[in-house]
């Protein structure tokens, strides 16, 4: 079990995460949804140890989570200038013994001998994903992994996430597009104004859209119809 206890994060006096306490079962795919500014990326940054929380802690089976426990695919992918895809992948030690680049390349089709700065957004995302998969951490944090990917790669990513689950990995995934989450997640957690307000089991997934966008839809429909 991954237990988050009283986790708070503030930026310039503004509390982004507010004393979050929640438990995540291991070996499952957890979807994190919320409107813009809800605190999804901040939560992931704390989970991946990129950001120190103001207070609170994250424990995995009664020990504090460490940097080595998680692999993190960020929303925006940054690399180092003038290095090729191959060189980028070589930077990371292969701790996942089953990782087979040749087999994955059948589907990813990345020009690994080319400089990364010449890649498209989707290609950069795929490269970053390969680096994440090369490492065999028990926790995978994927922030908006479907952004910028073509339809085919979206489907492949879904297959990858389900394969990670089969290998007993814990996956955290966020997305602005709800549909892929409904297919791959075991549980979806709704984050609102820095607090987890609801957890949905698979049977409750149809409610998510109404909960997430219900109020927004009602307000926006009226305003927009007058504005355009």
């Amino acid at each position, binding site marked *: 079990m991954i237990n988050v206890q009283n986790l708070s994060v503030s930026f310039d006096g503004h509390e982004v995460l507010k004393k979050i306490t929640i438990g995540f079962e291991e070996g499952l795919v957890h979807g994190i949804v919320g409107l813009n500014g809800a605190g999804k990326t901040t939560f992931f940054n704390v989970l991946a140890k990129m950001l120190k929380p103001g207070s609170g802690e994250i424990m995995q089976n009664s020990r504090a989570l460490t940097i080595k426990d998680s692999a993190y695919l960020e929303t925006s992918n*940054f690399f180092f200038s003038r290095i090729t895809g191959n060189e980028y992948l070589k930077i990371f030690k292969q701790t996942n013994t089953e990782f087979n680049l040749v087999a994955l390349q059948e589907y990813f089709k990345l020009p690994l001998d*080319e400089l990364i*700065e010449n890649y498209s957004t989707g290609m950069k995302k795929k490269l970053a994903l390969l680096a994440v998969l090369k490492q065999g951490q028990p926790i995978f944090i994927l922030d908006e992994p479907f952004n910028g990917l073509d339809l085919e790669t979206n489907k492949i990513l879904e297959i990858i996430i389900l394969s990670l689950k089969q290998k007993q990995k814990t996956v955290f995934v966020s997305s602005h597009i709800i549909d892929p989450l409904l297919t791959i997640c075991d549980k979806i957690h709704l984050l609102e104004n820095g607090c987890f307000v609801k957890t949905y089991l698979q049977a409750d997934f149809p409610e998510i859209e109404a909960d997430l966008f219900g109020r927004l839809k009602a307000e926006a429909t009226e305003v927009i119809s007058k504005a355009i």
Partner: protein
Amino acid sequence: MTKTLLYIRLRQFNREANSLGFYLPVFIAMAAILAFVTYWQYKHNQQAWLIVILLSGICLAIQYNRKDKAFIYKQLEKPHLQLFLEYLVLTLPFSITSIVSKNWFCFPLLLLALACIPFLKFQFKHRAVFKNLSSLIPASNYEWISGLRKQYIPFISLFLFAVAFSWVRIFPLFLLWFITIMMSSFFLENEPVHILRAGNKTARKFLSDKIKINIQYILILYSLPVIINAIFVQEFLIITLLFIPVQLALVSFAICLKYSSYKPNTNLLGNNIAFSIIAMLSAVPYFLPVAAIFAIVYFFKAEKNLKKYLHD
């Protein structure tokens, strides 16, 4: 629009200037000295028009490499005028003084060159040269791979010249010193945190390993010209012998300086000036230990800063 753009540039300049910290007065002093030197050249040198070529070349290089070209040409009104004004403001301190000299024609000549540059809209797409570089240099030394790809022509040329003239007094050492300065520019780009964490090292181990590998590269690279120089130029043996430790200290300082102000995914162009000042000081006999002292001081600063990213 023109006023807005110049205001934005002024704010960007202010931001960069602030990032220089206590190096700012030195930077201003160097710029003032450079402005005075160009004035003196305009006044006394018949070949002062070479300064116009140099300034135009710098602006051309900026135009060639800048990443905001597509935005400027697409979004701004009168983009050519905007770019011209930017280059004019940049070169003004080093060109306006020509008006009151016998080389008065240099200023209109520069204006003409600067007016042409914005019409060169080439978009540069980098190509991967030396695709197998990682078989020679491990990918974990990505700064070298990236740096060599960016600067392989001057880097290799300077090195070959240094070897070719290694029997000459001082000159090869000067070329190698220039290579060291070039090498320091490999450490102006901040990698993302996941690259930093790839080796699973503590801050101290990360820094010492990085310094060690760079010291090895310098020793391998410089040993041939320096040994030949030491054999042929016996009367300057002490300078030749002191040269290597100073270069090792300089590169160590460049690494520590980078990581002392490391922030993921950013560039540290301000560090270039700080490094150049220390590099120049280290060429003055009484200031030889400066690089080593700064390397040690900045090692601890870098370790402290890296702990934020590498430690639980």
